[in-house]
Every structure is written in structure tokens, then in C-alpha cells.
């Protein structure tokens, strides 16, 4: 990436940071609510863990709270990757700042990518906080979470591939918003399916047999499974090659497809004169 492009991207991050912290109470409440939601999952898991011991032992890592924690982390990332581009583009359209940016010598693709950067950084912070708070909660119980740092590299590779895959779909959603002025349906559909069939809150194996094949079609399934194996049992890149391979295929198809659809939508919106309409 060239220096001016990095500078522009940072300008977007700084702008969004200034905007975010200008809502001071919301910023504090956001962090507060994160601690609350981790607490809810912690106590919920403790309740089930003690009562359904046999089933819990079959989970990756054998700890329900850790299982959910490392399901929510990639899921949160996926949510951002899916929705941030469309959401930010829509927001700039509605607030009226999009036109002012598009008359500048900066590519529309840069405007959309960089507008979502802050969301990614903020979510990274949230995910790290989630894990720290979660591990902190568990530390004071009889069932602490032991993280296997040997699997960190594998977890990061899997995370990265899942983000690329989701970015592809997210860009498609932004293209839909740009041209059809609606893109949320696509995001909602994939998000809901991921939450239900993707092994985020419970193992995909717990689903009825008839719907289990659906989980194989979702990148989040391979991500949650891979990240848990990496961080909770210490499996490395070689052990997780099957998950990595599938995510690579998803990324190789969805990212170029997303970019291609975006380019078509951009040209069509400029031709129809609807680029800044909403």
C-alpha cells in the first residue's frame, strides 16, 4: 500500500475515532455492556457445565464458557466484515457527506474500505477485551481457561482468512446498497444462519441431522472450530490444514466476486446518477 493511501486510511480512522468519542457516555456504556454480556455467558455456562458434565467434556477444550467465548470472538469479527462496508456507505449517503468525499481525488473503493477500518479496529479491541474479561472471570473459578499459545499462529491465519471471506460478502452487500439502496437482507441472512448453524454458541453436531449440511456451507463453522482447536487444545497450522483449505477456497471465490460486483455496481450507479441517493 502506498504512503498516501495509508495516510488516507488513517485519516478515516481518526475521523471515526473523533466522532465516536464525541458521544462520550455511549462510548463508556459500550465497554460496560461488553462486560455484562461476558458475565451473562459466564454464569449461563457455569450452570450448564455443572449439570451436563458428560456433554461438556465432549466440547473442544471441555469448557462451555471457553467454547462460547471463542465462538463469539470470530462471530463478532464476521459481523463487522459483513456489515461495516454497507453500513458506513449508507451512513455517508444519509448524512450527506458521501458526495463531498467523492468529488475528491480519492477512489470510491478507498472511501468504502477506509470508512470501515475504524469498525475493524474497534472490534479488535472489543474481541481482545472480551477474551481478557472472559479469561479473567474464569480465572477466579474452579474451571479456568487455559490458552495454548502454540496455536496462536494457526488461530490468526484462520481468523485472517475468515475476515477476507466475510469482506468479500460485505463488499457485495455494499454494492447492493449502492445500487439497489438495500443490502441488509443479504447480511441479515448470512448473520442469522451463521449464529444458528455455524457452531458459535453450541456445536454444529447438536443440530438435527437434516440441517447439519447447512453448517458446512458457512465459513464461520470452519473458523470457530479452527480457532477453538488452536487456542484451547494447541493444534497448529498443519493440524488445521483442512479448515484452512476450506477457508482459502471461500476467500478465493468470495473476495474477487465481491470486488467484481462492487465495480459493476459503482459504474451502474454513476451511469444512473444514483450514487449519492438513498
Amino acid at each position, binding site marked *: 500500500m502506498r504512503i498516501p493511501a495509508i*495516510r488516507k486510511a*488513517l485519516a478515516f480512522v481518526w475521523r471515526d475515532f473523533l*466522532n465516536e468519542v*464525541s458521544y462520550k457516555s455511549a462510548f463508556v456504556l459500550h465497554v460496560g455492556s461488553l462486560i455484562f454480556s461476558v458475565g451473562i455467558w459466564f454464569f449461563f455456562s457455569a450452570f450448564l457445565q455443572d449439570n451436563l458434565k458428560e456433554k461438556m467434556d465432549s466440547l473442544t477444550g471441555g469448557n462451555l464458557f471457553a467454547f462460547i467465548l471463542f465462538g463469539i470472538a470470530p462471530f463478532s469479527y464476521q459481523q463487522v466484515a459483513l456489515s461495516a462496508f454497507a453500513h458506513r456507505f449508507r451512513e455517508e449517503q444519509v448524512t450527506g457527506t458521501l*458526495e*463531498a*468525499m467523492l*468529488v475528491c*481525488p480519492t477512489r470510491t473503493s478507498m472511501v468504502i474500505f477506509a470508512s470501515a477500518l475504524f469498525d475493524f479496529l474497534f472490534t479488535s479491541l472489543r474481541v481482545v477485551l472480551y477474551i481478557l474479561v472472559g479469561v479473567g472471570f474464569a480465572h477466579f473459578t474452579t474451571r479456568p481457561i487455559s490458552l495454548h499459545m502454540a496455536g496462536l499462529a494457526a488461530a490468526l491465519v484462520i481468523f485472517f482468512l475468515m475476515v477476507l471471506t466475510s469482506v468479500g460478502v460485505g463488499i457485495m452487500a455494499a454494492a447492493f446498497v449502492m445500487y439497489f439502496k438495500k443490502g441488509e437482507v443479504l447480511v441479515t441472512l448470512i448473520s442469522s444462519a451463521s449464529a444458528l448453524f455455524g457452531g458459535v454458541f453450541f456445536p454444529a453436531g447438536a443440530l438435527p441431522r437434516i440441517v447439519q449440511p447447512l453448517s458446512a456451507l458457512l465459513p464461520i463453522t470452519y473458523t470457530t472450530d479452527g480457532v477453538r482447536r488452536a487456542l484451547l487444545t494447541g493444534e497448529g497450522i498443519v493440524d488445521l490444514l483442512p479448515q484452512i483449505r476450506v477457508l482459502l477456497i471461500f476467500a478465493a471465490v468470495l473476495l474477487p466476486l465481491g470486488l467484481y460486483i462492487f465495480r459493476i455496481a459503482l459504474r451502474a450507479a454513476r451511469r444512473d446518477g444514483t450514487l449519492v441517493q438513498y
Partner: protein
Amino acid sequence: MPAAISVEDLAKSFIKRRSLRDMVTHPLVKAERVTALDGVTLSVAPGEIFGLLGPNGAGKTTLLKILSCLIIQSRGRALVNGYDTLADEMRVKTSVGFVTSDERSFYWRLSGRENLRFFASLYNLPPARAARRCQDLLDRLELTDKADHAFMTYSSGMKQRMAVARALLHDPPILFMDEPTRSLDPLAAKHLRTLVTDSLNRKEGKTILLATHNLSEAEELCSRIAIIHKARIRRMGTLAEVRSWALARERYVIEVSGGDGFAPYRFDGGRVEVDDGAAEGPAPHAVRLRAELDRGGAALTHVLRDLVARGATIVSCTRYEASLQEIFDMTVEEGNKPA
């Protein structure tokens, strides 16, 4: 010298959006198209202030958006600072500053300075240069006192000056201004017009394309104008040229006293009428006549000689200039007539 802006046979039509019901009930009917621009050709010289006039929906904003690379034309070619809007998008955008009257085009919770710094990065200004340039513009546009206050606390006049400051960040040779004084009070509007003419145009030699339906503003600022109506340029030229179209004959108001009564009459060089319904009465004991005469002076000489011969004293004789408003109304009326 090559033109700053050159537009050749530019046309743009949009597909009219259909309702879902219409699409279901008439799936095979071809979508209707709305023509926004049709065969527009114009050229703006470097350093010129050129006015685009027209009623709402005439096509002014569509033209500005094509020139800013926000919309792709259906036909024709547009060059800005010598760069093609289709082939050289980034160079076009580097050559142009866009002043919009939309206050919402800023981030309201950020300060004026933070807004300008953000947009400076989009204009590829390195941080140190951006900081200096922002400060220069804040000083020049008298915004320094409130530069670090949230944009939402600014008055309309300050917001509009911020729009000008943003357009000048990269010091472009060409400015597009879309209704820049629309939301300003008369004093703020006057200040902005002075800035445009004295500073931006005369001192810095910037070319300015001004879209407006404020006719007195166009009259005050523009060296040439184009009146757009229903997607086409109906009149174009200097104000004098456009006026000469509007009034094929010259008009005079002649006040006379004495003489043996006046009646309307016609002759080869024009016609003379008695003005009974003047809002302000003529001088005491004087009669006001309105004459519509051929250009060149011969017809006027003929009328004045005739009046003197009839024993009248010429109290005053004033040539009547059509206002831009009248020309505009005539143009719109002409455009509305069925073909």
C-alpha cells in the same frame, strides 16, 4: 489558450424508476427515460466566471455532477482543465473544487479544523502541508476564532465559508459552485460574492462555474451566462448578447412636455406608445412615451425630431435595459411552448 471547461454535445438521460406494482403488472414495458441534458455544448475560458442559470430541474446540477465525475454522461464529451471526465477522473478531480450549499456535507460533531484536515487528506495533502493550508484558509475565511468548535455550532454563513475553504484546500484552478448563497442572509451573501470576484477570480485567476437561480447574483458575478431549461441551453453569451436577443429592438422611455397631444403611432423604424399606467408618474406636466425602435440610432433620431417638430420639449430620454429576470422569464416561456 485552451478552455478551462469544454463540453461538446453532452446528453444525459435517466431511467425513470418504476413502482413494484408497475413492474409486476407491465413486465414487458420498456422503462421510461427522463432527459436531464440534451446536446449541451459550451466552453468556459480560463479565469472566467460563467453562470449556469435555470429553474429547478433544468439540468444545472446534472451538468456539474458530470463535470465532477459523479455521473457518467449518456453521450458527448466533457473536458475539465484539459482532462476528459471519463478517462482522467482523478486529474479532473484534482483540478476542481466543489462548493456545495449542502450544510450536511460536513461532520457536525467534528470541529471546523478537524473537518478540513480530514478532507485535506482526501486531496492528498501531506500532514504538515495540510495543517498549514487549513490554518491559512481558516484565517482567510475568518473562521479561526471558532476553528476548534464543533461544526454544528457554526452559523449558516460560517458553514458556507467552510464549504469554500474545503473546495480551496488543494488550490484548484477551477471552482464549481452550486447555489453557494442559497441559505445566506443578504450581508453574508454579499461577503461571499466579494470573495468570489475580488479574491478568487481577480487575484487568483480561478475559473468559476456558478450554478444559480439567483439572477441578480449571476448579473453581478458572471461575465457570461447560459440559460438552461428543460435539458437544453436556450441562451448563452455575455449579458449584453443575451439582452440583445431578448430585445430585438431597443426600448426607450421618453418624457416630453408641451406639444399638441400624443397618440400611439407606428413607422418603418418602430412604434411609440403613450404610457398611462406608469407606477411612478412622470415629471409635472410631462407625458411618458415608450418607444420600441430599430437599433442604430436613426429611428430614435426620427422620433425625437418628430416630437420636437410637434412643439414638444424633451424632458428626458432613457434607454431601457431588460433585466435578467425578464430575459429568464422569456426564455423559460419560450421553452415551455409546444414544439
